[in-house]
């Protein structure tokens, strides 16, 4: 059978973010997958070099809407290491609490997206409704649903009252009950099991070789979790299990995330029970001494890393960000080999990708401040040319369509 090459993206049918997959098919089977990323490159690393540490902190929080606290905490703990700042225990616990609540909303969001990709929209509606409880909690604790702005150099910006913490426990109880129900649905409902099993398979060896991390790696038996191996924040004081699964497929990835939620609820209860009293910030200098630090953080999607180099001024010399999706994307091409084209959306969604995070970096605003606009027909011509360069020509198809209309 003749091979067919089709473009999926940059406007992706499954995700609300741009990335381009050029898929070569033999019938329904995927033979090869070629990726083009970078559509969300915003120049954040460069921008950080022109801003003070505190400004960079809030800019980096906007690398990603979902794991915003992950990026801001990962960055600031590197800066605090260079500056030699010792955080007050209460600040450490508050940061950890927000981190784990973020994991709950991120995993529930993923469950909904996964449900949507397999045509199970009831699951999307249910899990996103439950996720709303966490979002409301964030609004009342931090003032924001996303980009909480909790961190500052040397601590956190808001303290929580006893009543607020009791409210967190109440919401967590409800979410735990709901998660138990979702675990039942995903592990007992035959349609879900059949739809997810054997799809997007990634063997343990391939996962290790390609450096797969987070729940995607743990579902292929990669027993890695930065919270346990390289403990930061309050994780050294908490007891929890790292969930590892050997299904190696999308089903395994769903199981890992759901069971991880149960561990997260356990951790949140421990954090609140152990929450120390005291101040929430230490006085931090405006200028950070020369030095460097490499910081790791287990974000909901996997290990997030930030490298920061200071030069003795109030601005960083270099900030380097690696979001989990960048590490996990390498495995997608492998996962999709010999899979059906129809499995592509769920297999990609199963790494819980975040392309804003990945590209993290330039709108076309010129130095004069004028914004470039591009007209519809220009855009259309540009895209036809672009696809032709990739070896894809729609001219024939357009002609056929025009004939039909006649």
């Amino acid at each position, binding site marked *: 059978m003749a091979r067919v090459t089709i473009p999926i993206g940059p406007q992706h049918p499954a995700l609300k973010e741009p990335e381009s997959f050029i898929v070569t098919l033999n019938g329904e089977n995927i033979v090869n997958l070629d990726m083009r*990323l970078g559509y969300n*490159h915003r120049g954040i690393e460069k921008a950080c070099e022109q801003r003070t540490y505190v400004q960079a902190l809030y800019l980096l929080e906007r690398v990603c809407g979902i794991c915003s606290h992950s990026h801001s905490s990962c960055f600031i703990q590197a800066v605090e290491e260079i500056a030699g700042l010792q955080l007050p225990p209460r600040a450490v616990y508050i940061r950890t609490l927000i981190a784990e609540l973020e994991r709950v909303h991120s995993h529930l969001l993923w469950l909904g997206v996964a449900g949507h990709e397999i045509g199970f929209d009831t699951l999307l509606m249910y899990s996103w409704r439950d996720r709303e409880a966490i979002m409301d909690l964030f609004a009342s604790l931090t003032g924001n649903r996303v980009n909480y702005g909790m961190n500052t150099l040397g601590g956190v910006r808001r303290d929580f009252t006893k009543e607020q913490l009791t409210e967190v426990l109440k919401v967590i109880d409800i979410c735990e009950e709901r998660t138990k129900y979702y675990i039942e649905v995903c592990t007992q409902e035959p349609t879900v099991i059949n739809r997810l099993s054997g799809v997007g398979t990634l063997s343990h060896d391939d996962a290790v070789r390609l450096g797969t991390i987070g729940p995607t790696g743990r579902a292929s038996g990669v027993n890695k979790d930065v919270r346990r191996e390289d403990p930061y924040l309050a994780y050294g004081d908490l007891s929890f299990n790292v969930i590892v699964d050997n299904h190696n497929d999308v089903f395994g990835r769903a199981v890992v995330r759901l069971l991880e939620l149960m561990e997260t609820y356990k951790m949140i209860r421990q954090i609140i029970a152990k929450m120390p009293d005291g101040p929430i910030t230490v006085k931090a200098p405006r200028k950070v001494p020369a030095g460097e630090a490499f910081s790791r953080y287990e974000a909901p999607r996997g290990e997030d890393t930030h490298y920061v180099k200071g030069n003795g001024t109030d601005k960083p010399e*270099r900030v380097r960000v690696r979001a989990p999706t960048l590490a996990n994307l390498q495995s997608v091409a492998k996962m999709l080999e010999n899979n059906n084209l129809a499995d592509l959306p769920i297999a990609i969604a199963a790494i819980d990708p975040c392309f804003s995070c990945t590209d993290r970096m330039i709108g076309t605003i010129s130095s004069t401040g004028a914004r*470039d606009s591009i007209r519809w027909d220009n855009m259309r011509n540009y895209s036809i040319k672009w696809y032709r360069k990739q070896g894809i020509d729609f001219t024939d198809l357009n002609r056929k369509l025009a004939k039909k209309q006649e």
Partner: protein
Amino acid sequence: MANEETIKTELSRKFSFLADKIVIQRVRRIFVDVPQERFHDVCEFAAKKMEFSNLCIITGLDDGDNLQFIYHLARMDGIVLNLRTTAPKSNPVIKTITDIFPGGVIYERELIDLLGAKVEGIPHGKRYPLPDDWPANQFPLRKDWKPEMLEGLSGRKEEAKNG
């Protein structure tokens, strides 16, 4: 920090030229300055013989006359070995490490696009992360690069004006 000390001893025993180049910065963080010509050997030894099998990321820096590259390698016990090497800006050639870490290809593409490194032996593939019509010889993460340098250079912009 017994494990960190063991790593230091093992590395300096195998590569005598590293003896005074290994710094244990804190628990679980080791920085090593490695000369460019032996970098690949050290990297391979760390990955295959010392279990640093996870390449977290490659950081590229512009330090004036040279480009600096830090390869952050992690191990299951949480120790991160940061291998640093440099190449002169006039001829910033480094050798690919994709034969050791196949997943590292995307980080090397970033070094090419953003810092203008030349990576020898990198597998053929699409650029990342800059747009296809990004002008040649403009490397945004170099310290002398300013956004104004882009003005009037974008082919897409010309097209929009003519269209």
